[in-house]
Structure formats: C-alpha cells, structure tokens
C-alpha cells in the first residue's frame, strides 16, 4: 500500500507516495530520477550511495524510505548552484584529478561534504576517516584526499 512521505530534498519540500519497504536510494533513483546517487553494492559497504540526511552522511541503500519523513536530504544533484556552477568540492575533484571512472565520485563527494560541514579544516587523518566508508578502485585515494584538503572551507 502506498504511503505519503514529505521531506525536503535538495532544498525543496516534496511530497511523494512510497512503499514502506523501499530504501531511500530506490526512491531517489527509480522514482524521482535522481541517478547521480549510485548503487555500488546495496549493503552499505561501498558508500557509492551516500547522501546527506540532516547533516550526516548516510548510505541511502540501507535507509528505510519512511525514515526520511520531515528530514532534510541532500544528494549530489543538490550541491551545484542553481545556475549550474560547481560546488567548491566538486570543482576541487575536477581540478585535482580525483576522478577516474567516477562511479564512486558522487558518494565520495557527499561524504566529504558532510565532513566539511562538521569541520572547516579537517586534518588528513580526519579526511581519511571521513571517506573511509567510500571505496574507490581507481585512484588509490591520494588525489581524492588532496582535493578534499584543497576544498575544505577553512582553507
């Protein structure tokens, strides 16, 4: 049976009909067409599906959709400006060579975003910890860490 769900998605209040057994990832990708959030494993092990819920980085593949009620959700589509300008973290990923195949990139950026919201000037150790749950097979993480360091708001 469909149930009504209201929450804030990328700065806009939305109301959608959902099934209680859906994950937030399913709603985002399959019903709302927000394909920027990726599914890498479906078990919360790779971080490709990371979104921000009330300021915290969350694996949306594990997040029961009904739990989003009344919450603020930000996805990778919500980071760029309305005019299409890149968020400083996105720009830093571009500029520092932090992107290869790119499948992990949206989730990686969302984890970095949550980290930078919490800490304006994260240490390298804090950056590593912040993206520990986001697997990347291409880059070896070095240039990702460099990009996050460069884009941290306290710099």
């Amino acid at each position, binding site marked *: 049976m469909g149930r009504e769900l209201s929450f804030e998605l990328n700065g806009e209040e939305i109301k959608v009909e959902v099934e209680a057994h859906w994950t937030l990832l399913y709603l985002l990708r399959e019903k709302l067409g927000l394909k920027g959030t990726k599914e890498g494993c479906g078990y919360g*092990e790779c971080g490709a599906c990371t979104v921000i819920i009330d300021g915290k980085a969350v694996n949306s593949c594990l997040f029961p959709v009904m739990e989003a009620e009344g919450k603020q959700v930000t996805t990778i*589509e919500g980071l760029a400006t309305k005019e299409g300008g890149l968020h400083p973290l996105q720009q830093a990923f571009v500029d520092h060579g932090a992107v*290869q195949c790119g499948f992990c990139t949206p989730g990686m950026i969302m984890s970095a975003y949550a980290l930078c919201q919490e800490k304006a000037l994260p240490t390298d150790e804090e950056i590593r910890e912040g993206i520990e749950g986001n697997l990347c097979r291409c880059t070896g993480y070095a240039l990702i860490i460099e990009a996050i360091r460069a884009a941290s708001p306290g710099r």
Partner: protein
Amino acid sequence: MELSAVGKRISKKDAPSKVTGSAAYIQDVTLPGMLYGKILYSTVAHGRITRIDTSRAERLPGVKAVLTGAQIPPFKFGVYKDNPPLKTGKVCSLRDEVAAVAAIDPEIAQEALDLISVEYEELPALFDPLAAMAEGAPLIHEEHKTNILKMPWKLMTGDVAEARKAAAFTVEDTFRTQWVTHCCLGTSGCIAQLDGANNLTMYSNTQIPYLAQKDFIEALGSFGMKGRRVRVIQSVIGGGFGSKLDTYAYEYIAILLAMRTRKPVKIVFTREEEFLATSPRQCTITRISQGCSKQGKLLFREMEMILDNGAYTSWGATTPSVMMLPISSLYRVANVKYTAKCVYTNNTYSQAMRGYGNPQATFAIESSMEQLAEAAGFDPFEFRQINANQPGEHTPQGFKITTCGLSECMEAVRKGLGWSGKRGEKPGRGFGMACLVHVGGGARVYKSDGCGTMIKIDDYGKIDVFTGSSDIGQGSETIIAQIVAEVLGVPVDDVNVINNDTDVCPWDVGVHASRTTFVAGNSALGAAQRIRTQILEIAGAALDEDPSGLDIRGGTIFAKHNKEKNMSLTKALRNVHYAPGGKVLMAEYFYDPPNENFDREFKGNLSCTYAYGAHGVEVEVDKETGRVRIVNYVAAHDVGKALNPMLLEGQITGGGAMGLGYALSEEMIYKEGRLMNGSYLDYKMLTARDIPPMQAVIVETDELDGPFGAKGIGEPGLVPTAPAIANAIYDAVGVRIKTLPMTPERVLSALKEK
C-alpha cells in the same frame, strides 16, 4: 618546441559530468519498454542437470520469458569456444548459468528465479589444479580429453642446463599467488535491443567494443539472424581493469531474451553476482630457479608455472604470453626456460586483470632475485644495477628495447626512500624494492593492434574527434584531446572526443596492454596532422606564404618569421567552406604500431617499446601481530613523456593501491568452488585509511615512436608492489613470505617457524 596542451596538468574532460552525477553508467540507462533479465546459477560445482522445471516461473505475472539451455540454439563463446551461455547437460562451476528470466521489473525477475527448480546429479569435482592434472582425474570437459589446456606455453632461449653448471650461485623456490578480482565500483551490465529488422544495438560497458561487436555478429548468426548489423554503444564505464575484455554469458542471455520478448532487455549484475560471475585474476604456483656468476651476472632463469584456468576459457589462459616478458627480459639474462600449464578446474574461470600475468611472474622473479643476491653476497640494489637492462639492447626473446629508464627509476626509488640500497640499514624497519618491465607501445596479441581516428572541424574551430579507443576511467579522452589541441593550436576545451559508438567511430582492438595513450594517441596525432596540413595550405594561399613556414597557436595561424602576418583559424575555415566548390575539413588516420605477433617459439618484438619501472618501500613489521605497516612507498616509472602529469600520477598511485591490496589483503577465498567472501565487507580492498604515503616519480626517456614521446602506463603501477613489500619484510624481520597475500597471519606464522 614549447607545448601548450601536452605535458600540462589538465583536468579530465568528463570530470564535470562525473562530479555532478550526470554521467550515465549502464545502471542509469533505461529504454522505453525495457525488461529486466536475471540469471539463475548452478548450485553444484560439477554435475549433470537432470531436470529443470520453469513452469511456476512462467506463470508469475510480470514474467515475459524464461529460458533454459535446451531452448536456445547451440552456441559457445570465449577464447576456446568452450562456454555455452546457458548450460545443458552439465554444469562445471557454481557460476554456471542454467536459466534466465525477463520480467517487467528486477524484483519480479528475481522472484521468478526462485520459482525455477533444478535437479542435479553431482559429479566428482576438482578445485585444485594439481589434483586436476593427476592421472585418472575426472574430466571437466570430456570432449577435451584432458584437464590441461592444449596451449603449451614454452619459451626457451640459450642453454639453461649449461648455464646452471657454470653458475657460481643458484637459488630455487616456489611462490604462490591467489585469486583476486577487479572490484569495479560499477558492476557489469548491458541492454540488448533489436530493431524491427533484427539489427542489434548493445548498450554495454565493454572494454573491447569492436571485438565484442564481432562476437555478437557471430552469435546472431548462430541464433538464426545471420548478416544482421550490430552496434555497440558504451555507456560511461564504472571501471574495467581487464574485467570487460571478453564477452560473457550475461550478454548473450540478454540478446536471447530480447529475441524472445521483442523488447529491450537489461541485465545488470548485483554486487554478489559481480563477485560470483565476473572472471578474476587466477591463482598460480611458480617454481623458479636462477643462477649468477661470482661477479653477480645473472646467468639463467628457469620457471615452471601452473595456472588455475577454472571451468571455462577466457583470456586468463593467455596470460603466460605476457608473463614471458618479465621472465625473459626483466634484467639481462641470456638463458631462459619457461613452461606454463593452464588447468581446467571446477572453480570460477579466469580472465585478464591489470598487468595480465605480469604481477604473478614478477612476484616470483623479484623475490628470487633478492634470494640470489643474498646467496651471492651482493646488496639487492647493487645486484639489480649489475643486471639492469640498458637502452638499445635486444633481449633473447626478441624484444628490441629502445629507451629504458630502469636504472634511473631504481636510483629515484633509492633516493626517494632515503635508503643506501644495503640490507639491514634501519633496525626494526625494512627496505625492499622490485622492478618491472611491461609493454609500452601496445602489444600485438590480436591480428591488428591498431586504432582508427576521424576528425572534423567546424566553422568555429570546434573539433570533433571520433576515436575507436575507449575511456574506462583512465582518461584517454582527455589525452587524445590534448594531443589534437597541441597539433592544431586550439584550446583543449575546443576538442570534443566521441569514443563510445561502433556505428560512428573507427575500429580499435580494445583497452588492454596499456596501449591506449600510445596507439590511440598516435592515431589521433596522425589524423590531427592531416587536418593541420590542410589548414596550413589554405592559410598559406591566403597569406601568400609557404605552408611549411606557418604555425597555429591559440586559434591564430601565423608566419613563423613574421607573426604580424596572420589570420584566425576560424576565418581560414569559413573561407574554404564558403568558397565556390567549398569544403569542410575532415581527416582520418589508422595507426597500427610495428609490433610483431610471437612466432611459434613465442619470440618476436611484441611491442615497439617497453615500459620500465621500480618500486621501493619501507616497512615496519609488528612481531607480535605480524602486521606490516608501510612507512613510505616510492613508485618510479619510465613513462617516455608525461602527457598529463596529473592523470599519470593517478594511474601510478591507483595502480600502486591495487598492488598493495594484492600484496597484503586481497584474496578470493574459495571452498570447494564456492566463494566465501563475495562482498566488499569480506573481500579486503584498501580504504582511504589503509593507504600509505605514496610518492610517484616520473622518469622521462622521450620515446621516439610515442605520441610526443609517451609510453603506456596503465598497468605497470601494480606490477612490482607485492615483491617490493615481500623483500622489505625480509629485510625487516628475516622471513620470506612466498604466498600472497602477505596477511598478518601469514607473516606471524612465518615468524614462528623461523
């Protein structure tokens, strides 16, 4: 000549779409009316299918087709043509496909699989290649008559027996490597779509669009659709690393389901399926002996190798061909004997993975080199320098080494680590190094090693480059744009690269052998030079100058002797377009490097240049826990010329991280053919927290045949990692780990045995 685009840290052209989430991977592509396919795998590793009942699945609402092997035309695919897309009669591994479903959504398709009942009569199974080689062992493929593949890999140069007699010091040992997998973050997938005339469009994340096209054309012939067209369109590819170097059962199943339903059918692997049903790098057992003279000159190298091929044959069975490269030509050694046997077992089946056999061979060679150095009383660094390859030498296998930065790489590693090159330098710590050689100018493993490029340029100086090469994340799109921009004197942003459609782009053999920068780069260079020639002729006529005296920079064509004499590129283009009988400029170029196929003795100049490198590492080993901590890591590579140092560093540190996982933590653990750790939680690839400081050192040797001097660098970054660490562990605590991965358990048990 001062370069404006090549050699610069230019960001990837596709990065903006990837950081905003707008890049469309196969997971993100949907077509109108599309159905979802799912595959039922065998539950026994070796057995006869005695009964399949699909009736309940067929009755499930939303199910549009159910297929079993009995319902499809006879057809086998793969390197050895030993693998039917849906099995009939017999299954040979737990990844064997026995039935498939197409339904209106993935959940219904999954539910339908649960309603299919299959009964098996189990057969004795073989999971160990040594057992499979034994006389009287049950046969995996009866028609093949033996479990040893009939690909007798054998390389002989010089006289090993004589050299062994002459050697003052010899060592001999056995090394083992494990099954590991690519772990692409984007899983495998495709959509098969047939038009009204039965032409096939395949949306795919393949690394080999044109060889896949050929495979699908053959399949359509077998499926009763001879002569139909096949178009392969690549969505953005979420990682390759060799995993997508062949066509697979799921792709043929999607085609068969699309034929049956007359709808587009999408099959995308779940993560469990990706672990279960993609083909990993095989495990190997290597016996190696080497000997040297009193002066430390390497006299012979003899290696015997057994490779677990698994149940079917893909490119994994041909990795001994590339293993021969380091075996014959890493260090100067005149007398070489190498034999390898690939053995059918009831395990998963093996495939190419970054390095293509080189990591397994180099682990044995570089571990053994260190043993030999010690036996002969040399420090490891000095021993390697004595035997280092030099520019211009011809190796016994017939490789013509052109440029060779091996000694410089070794020196860079030593300096970068702050190491004297001697043993036991720092108490409690260990230093180790290992070197590598890999193909640097493509490799003729197929009849053609070529790549085609077409270029057109519009009235506004905007350029479209149509290349056969694929970008699997490594950045070839950007490298090609840089090369074209450099030749035509335009900004990189003005060069658009189209690289994902066999209907539009010319042929290429695929992303393998670290070949794309070299081969596709040279192809793009050739096409760009042809356009440039046309442009300069037009401008020469307009400016009344000899075209050879003109240059293009920043979109302006000018006389080199007088820059005042100039015209804009766009003006020249429009003038010729709108002149009577006008034309728009286009050019094409097909580049096939002068690489040789091996002859019957596996000799020949496989690549027109070779890439060398050295990795060095400083470790600390916890004697209580066996844990190895990487204190410092330096990876030095002879790259010919760095076309884009930023992307290059990404290849080196990315490869290095993959190599660290191979060395220390990654292993597919199989128990009776069943993968016990098929998830990211249990299969330990490294996270951001595990990555040690890694310094990439770029050594430039300006390769004459390379585009602007470049060599390939896609694979070398992970080749010498494991032996470098093994050697460092030995230096630190005096135990030699001969089996990968070098987990704390293994190190600890070696310490206890000491």
